[in-house]
């Protein structure tokens, strides 16, 4: 269970959603690095779906569907459904 985040093969800068060229060095080669957890920055609920902004340890903040209730500061496990980040156990 993890969330793959593209990391520039040349300079190590992470990007989510994926880019074509690295914003930092212009590199075009990307390696998917699995990220297992992140820290909740903000949460909301829309039509019964719990949604959070979660900072990954690689840098990018992802928008994730929550499987559990959560609060800012919580550390949650990360996975994906299709290409959508999902957080919580």
């Amino acid at each position, binding site marked *: 269970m993890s969330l793959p985040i593209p990391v520039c093969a040349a300079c190590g800068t992470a990007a989510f959603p994926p880019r074509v060229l690295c914003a930092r060095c212009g590199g075009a080669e990307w390696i998917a690095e699995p990220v297992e957890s992140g820290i909740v920055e903000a949460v*909301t609920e829309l039509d019964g*779906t719990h*949604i959070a*902004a979660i900072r990954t340890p690689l840098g990018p*903040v992802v*928008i994730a*569907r929550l499987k559990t209730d959560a609060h800012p500061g919580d550390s949650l496990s990360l996975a994906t459904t299709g*290409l959508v980040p999902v957080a919580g156990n």
Partner: protein
Amino acid sequence: MTGARIVGASESPYARHPGDGVTTEWLLADAFVRVLAEAGIERGDVDGLGLASFTLAPDRAIDLAWRLGVRPRWLMDDGNGGASGIQLLQHAVRAVDAGDASTVVLLGGDRLDRNTFRSLVDNYNRATALHLASIPTGGPNALFALLTQRHMDLHGLERADYGRLVVAQRQRASRNPGAVYREPLTLDEYLAAPVIAEPLHLYDCVPVVSGADALVVKRADHGVAVAAFRAQHNRDGQDGDGLVTGLADVAEALWAAAGAGPGDMDVVSVYDDYPAMALVQLADLGIAPDPKRFLHEELESLALNTSGGQLSAGQAGAAGGMHGLVEIVTQLLGRADKRQVPAARLGVVSGYGMVLYRYGACANAVVLERT
């Protein structure tokens, strides 16, 4: 200062629920006919056409020009939503000054019913379609709920603070017959409105409408001049918190080019898809650096979003990028009727939008001057 002037501004009335026979093309045509009459020009004089629309597809500017009976020698599409109106204006002014066209009409508009809007926001760009739509986020609502929480934390704001802006804009909308919401709104009603995504409730979310806006740019002695234009898109590549737009990077140069400052503006329009973003743009432009103080001490004395803004007048898709321009030009031409700001000579309009993943990627602004 250039020889190009905005000599007309019109809006095809916004409607919350478009009739079955109403199409995007019809709305754009209606705005076109209205602005020709407003500017006192003939269709045959028009040799430039610029278009911003999400829902005219697969048609583009040339298809619309043909259907309107226009033979342009200058033609432009801009699909960049909340930034499109100011971008089209920038290019139109330069085209007229360079002699590429003599009379340019700029059009922005969309027909958005429930299904069309859902399809638009779910497929807004590939980042949204692939990584957000199936959460679902309800279009931008959940994203700006998360952003507004950060804004509240940063500035110590509560819902009632944002409510002051929404209530004030609704009061201004009561003097705009074109606004879809004109009846007064109390702060209690604002606070009691149904929740959309905390902390956003119904009146924090821009109402989706159908409609179209139009401007005419031509060489003239009198009209509204673009005194300065600046843009900065992709300021932080979505790696920031969304609480600063590219306007912060260009405000100083914008005011220097205009030869005026934030305090000189008689009328102000910022892109108000959500109250927090209106406050962010006001801060970035240097008009209201402290949002709490602004809401409590300065809001009533600033002629801000005098149409009621999009929060009361409505957001007609890509026309949202032209709505503020049409309102400020109307004010500067002295044609704002019951909501006219007396002797308005200088105004500023900002554009914002194109939510790329977490927040808007585009930001631009013009200072306008009556001549």
